[in-house]
């Protein structure tokens, strides 16, 4: 999957891999790539400013921790981050349901009424 396609969803991906627990920058990158089975093309450097932005927005917290032989900045989801992740998942499911319905439409055309019947108009319930 191309970098530009991933960019619009980067925030959600970062929040999702942090859901199980705190991770440092490179572990976050690795987690995203592992979860995607290596299918996502990600300019890994762009993850770091994105993490800074999510922290500024109050979706993540961070502090320096010793990991192995180095000190690394580890990120944790905040309560606001968990709520945003839930909203992101809901929005994604609704989006894929709608797009899926449109993309799948040709396979359903056979079940439609015969040609020449009156067009179906949908109106909001009153």
């Amino acid at each position, binding site marked *: 999957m191309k970098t530009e396609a991933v*960019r*619009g*969803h980067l*925030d*959600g991906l970062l929040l999702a891999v942090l859901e199980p627990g705190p991770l*440092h*920058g*490179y572990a976050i*990158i*690795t987690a995203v790539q592992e979860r995607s089975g290596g299918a996502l093309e990600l*300019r*890994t*450097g*762009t*993850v*770091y*400013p*994105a993490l*800074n*932005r999510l922290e*500024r*927005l*109050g*979706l993540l917290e961070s502090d320096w921790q010793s990991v192995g*032989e*180095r*000190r*690394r*900045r580890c990120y944790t989801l905040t309560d*606001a981050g968990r709520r*945003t992740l839930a*909203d*992101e998942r809901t*929005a994604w499911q609704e989006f894929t349901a709608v797009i899926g319905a449109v993309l799948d439409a040709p396979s359903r055309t056979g079940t439609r009424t015969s040609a020449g019947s009156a067009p179906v108009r949908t109106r909001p319930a009153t």
Partner: protein
Amino acid sequence: MSGMSDRAPLDVGDARGQGRQQSDPVVAYTAELRAALVGPARVKSRMVAEIHDGLLDATDAYVGEGVPRAEAARRAVRDFGTVAELVPECQRELTVAQTRHTARAAARCVPFLLVCWALTRTAVGPAAAPLALLAAVSTVLAAVTLAATGGALARRFPSPRALPRVVAWTGTGASLGMAVATLALACTAFLTAQWPLLVLAGALSAASHAVLSTSVRVCRRCPAPAADPLDGTLPG
């Protein structure tokens, strides 16, 4: 940064360091990135250090797969994207960080200006009103900027792209106002019997100017954030 100096020092001021910078792609990448970015020193240093550490982690991962270290470092740098690709993303965040820094500097000026206004009003009466105006401008600048760039409000509404420019020039105006006030208070002090009050007020006004002018200078140097249609994609 403990642990990084054994392999890749970031300060490469001497000839030996420059030679190493050219030979080590991680150091060269980090140095180029550092030179290209403008923003608050602490935030910039943390961002560059994190990227440097990430490059070392990526290098180690390749080395763990059996790739020679020099080639591993080149692959790590390739995966990160070019400096030209990374700078707009990093600078956008640093510009916002500098904007917030200037807003906090303006907030720190407010108590000084209020005391300054109270002292001056005691000495010269209603003529002290411009100092109250400066305090009000600083308060509004700080409150609006901090609310628009962090926390719940910023999650719901993307920050206006023009905000850093507006803050830089409003802060510059306020800072100049403080300098003019300092000069006016110093001159007036010679003409009134209550000169000690005005001298103290002048000192407070000068302190406010010193606090704000340093931050707005950097804020004016920060490039305006590039347009990014993907900003604010998170639901509120």
